[in-house]
């Protein structure tokens, strides 16, 4: 039987007349990486803040490791590590001091190993204000792990990072996942969610529009496969529907078709090329991405 470490049931959170979270429910298994996706204002951060004990919900129940974040904050802090979307440290604090401070309040020896693990020199005399955005994010992640939490919440962990910084942070998240830590993350980055998350929930206007593995979510969409093709003599351009493949656009010498039966459509397109005495220079068959499925859900909601 699966053991759930995070349980959210019919969670409701209102700000004056605005219902930011409107009765959402989901569960996260131990050791799972669970992603919350959604456009701005969808309720991701509010949901996470209810789990972090920073906001009081207006309805429903929330449990982290069986603890109610609204009533037992002290126990929660030993179980939960949090990297906030907007957080900071005093400008003049050094990474080692920040770690000493957090560990002192958790009554544990300073976790210099975590600073090493995230590529932050424990001997560094660099102050927080002199650190790069990537270093700051990694420091906050290291601080979130100081008490060896069973659950870690990451709110937009890679926002504002450059490519190298993102890669480093992704690697750190993968390491955490291998060590069995349960991760709950909110992100705007679909590629990030697709590569890191075991399951994702897409939130739209405070409700869960869909939930499942990235593969389940993408396949539950319109289910059309994209075929992109370029031939030497451009015999298929200007494009038209061929067999079950529906022509959608032309970009330079590339034609793009959408189809439900990818194998039959590829065969039909290649036969057409052969008939015209042309040769294929480039052929790509792509399944819809999580991003496309996300946009489909958001657009459907807007319409």
């Amino acid at each position, binding site marked *: 039987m699966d053991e759930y470490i995070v349980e959210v049931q019919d969670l409701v959170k209102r700000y004056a007349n605005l219902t930011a979270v409107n009765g959402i429910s989901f569960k996260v298994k131990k050791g799972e990486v669970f992603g919350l996706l959604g456009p701005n204002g969808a309720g991701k951060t509010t949901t996470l803040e209810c789990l972090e004990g920073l906001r009081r919900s207006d309805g429903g129940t929330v449990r982290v490791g069986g603890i109610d974040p609204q009533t037992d904050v002290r126990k929660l802090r030993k179980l939960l590590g949090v990297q*906030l979307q907007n*957080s900071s440290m005093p400008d003049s604090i050094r990474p080692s001091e920040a770690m*000493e401070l957090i560990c002192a*309040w958790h009554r544990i020896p300073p976790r210099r190993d975590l600073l090493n693990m995230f590529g932050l020199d424990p001997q560094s005399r660099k102050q927080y204000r002199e650190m790069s955005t990537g270093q700051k994010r990694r420091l906050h992640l290291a601080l*979130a792990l100081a008490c060896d939490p069973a659950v870690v919440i990451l709110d937009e962990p890679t926002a504002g990072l450059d490519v190298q910084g993102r890669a480093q942070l992704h690697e750190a998240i993968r390491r955490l996942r291998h060590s069995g830590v349960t991760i709950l993350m909110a992100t705007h980055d679909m590629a990030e969610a697709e590569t890191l998350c075991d399951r994702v929930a897409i939130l739209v206007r405070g409700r869960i529009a869909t939930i499942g593995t990235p593969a389940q979510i993408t396949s539950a969409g319109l289910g059309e496969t994209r075929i992109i093709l370029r031939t030497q003599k451009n015999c298929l351009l200007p494009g038209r529907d061929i067999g079950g493949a529906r022509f959608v656009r032309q970009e330079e010498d590339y034609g793009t078709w959408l189809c439900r039966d990818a194998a039959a459509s590829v065969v039909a397109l290649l036969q057409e090329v052969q008939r015209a005495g042309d040769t294929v220079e480039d052929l790509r068959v792509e399944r819809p991405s999580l991003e496309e499925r996300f946009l489909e859900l958001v657009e459907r909601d807007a319409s």
Partner: protein
Amino acid sequence: MKALMKHLLIQFRMDIRERGTLMTYYLIPLVFYLFIGAVFTSVNPLVKNTLAASMAVFAATMGAVLGTPVPVVKMRESGVLRAYRVSGIPGWAVPFIHGISAFLHLLIVSSIILITAPVFFGAGRPQDYTAFFLTLVMLLFSTIAIGMLIGAAARSQSMAVMLSQMVFLPTVVLSGIMFPASMLPEPLRMLGRLLVGTYAMEAFSGLAYGLATDFSAPWSILVGACIGILAAGLAMLRFRRMGKSP
């Protein structure tokens, strides 16, 4: 207790590294003290008697009222308080540690002034050092409590600066640190009685230096402390409310 001590040590070190804090806690009060000691004492020799006391009031008000609120507001605005909170640091610890650290810095600068004033400028020495330090403790506690209240109440850093100036400038003019409060017109003298600095100057003069005062020196300590307790209570309430909001 261990966590509090560690936090205090780190905060104390951070204050020393922070240029703005260093200016308001040490540099400006000491430069002002040297200027007043060198120039003003020759213009008004009366100032000489209680130079250490008046400059301690200036340093404490400058450091506590101008120096402590802005970092507190900045911590709130930048998300430091939230980050501390989710990391298991209790909400009360941040202003408490901040206040204790400010207390230590301002105690150091006041002690420097007390020791050097007679040597550099021939200023009067207190007759009763215990009374001097008792008054100093009241002064520091109350001014830091007012600083914390401003830090907790101000919605932005600019508002904190404005509120701080509303306490600091009248203290410089009305509390009797530049010239005796008895020289002020009655309405201004009454206004001065709202300020901790006025009561601190009365207590310093009457208890530590054995000089004549406008009103009872022991009562001055009590009134000054009451203002501090009131400010500390209001600041605590405000911080508690802040701790409940995200």
